[in-house]
């Protein structure tokens, strides 16, 4: 897992999250202290077999940590890989902001002022619309981490 390229991993993460059942599972796991597959199956309208299948997909994407406890395996939510996708967009977004700043210095310094309503616009999305949006003023510097992203899970 750790040997895979970050971009590669981001694809796996979004893939794992693309299934509504898996997202519901992840939510249930994040809200409980290390549940087992049996406990999760009791909460959701799917079989323990199905739960295990989805847990495997989530663990493959690095979103779950498995630990053996007696005869059962307990699952914990590990949100780290979620940041890979955000990292790509933060890094690439910052590169473009820097390039745009160069262009503005090269072509924009000058005589004409930008017409109203022609302000810069930037959008960054990973299936969501309200993630990192580095401000144009951050051009030339690495964009700050998006405020919505925290590395520590609120429950765990």
């Amino acid at each position, binding site marked *: 897992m750790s040997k895979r*390229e970050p*971009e*590669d991993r*981001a*694809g*796996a993460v*979004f*893939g794992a*999250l*693309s299934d509504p059942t898996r*997202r519901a599972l*992840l*939510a*249930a796991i*994040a*809200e409980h202290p290390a549940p087992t597959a049996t406990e999760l199956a009791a909460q959701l309208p799917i079989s323990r077999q199905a739960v295990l299948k989805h847990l495997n997909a989530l663990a493959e994407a690095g979103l779950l940590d498995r630990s053996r406890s007696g005869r059962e395996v307990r699952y914990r*939510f590990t*949100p780290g890989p*979620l940041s890979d*996708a955000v990292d*790509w*967009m933060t890094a*690439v*977004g910052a590169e*473009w*902001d820097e*390039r*745009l700043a*160069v*262009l*503005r210095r090269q*072509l*924009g310094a000058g*005589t*004409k*002022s*930008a*017409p109203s309503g*022609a*302000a*810069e*616009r*930037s*959008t*960054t*999305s*990973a*299936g*969501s*619309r*309200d*993630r990192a949006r580095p401000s144009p003023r951050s051009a030339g510097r690495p964009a700050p981490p998006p405020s*919505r*992203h*925290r590395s*520590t*899970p*609120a*429950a*765990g």
Partner: protein
Amino acid sequence: MTDRIERELWLPATPQEVWDAVTSDGWLGDRVSLELRPGGDAEFESDGELRTGWVEDVSMPERLSFWWAVGQEPASRVELRILERDNGSRLRIVETRPLDRLDLVGVPLPGAGGVGYGPALVAA
């Protein structure tokens, strides 16, 4: 669905001036080599890092799309559009990284808001 970066900038310059600036050395890379035809080779070198790729489509001075990647990393697609607007030019940039494994259309990701998941997931 793809990861996507989008930027727009208005510049007090003609589309041709913007085109020249964005395709010259020093913008997409310190050294830029673009074969301006569909399927043409593209090379960008900056700080010793080489990005290679190919040109997907060209319509000078309005549109350039190409793919680039560093080494064996997954490639991303860049589209530059330059439109004459308000006595200047509007440059629109879209860089996308296709996630080809699974379709993500309409998937609310954690943190996207409006999704009834627990606070832990939203915080993640």
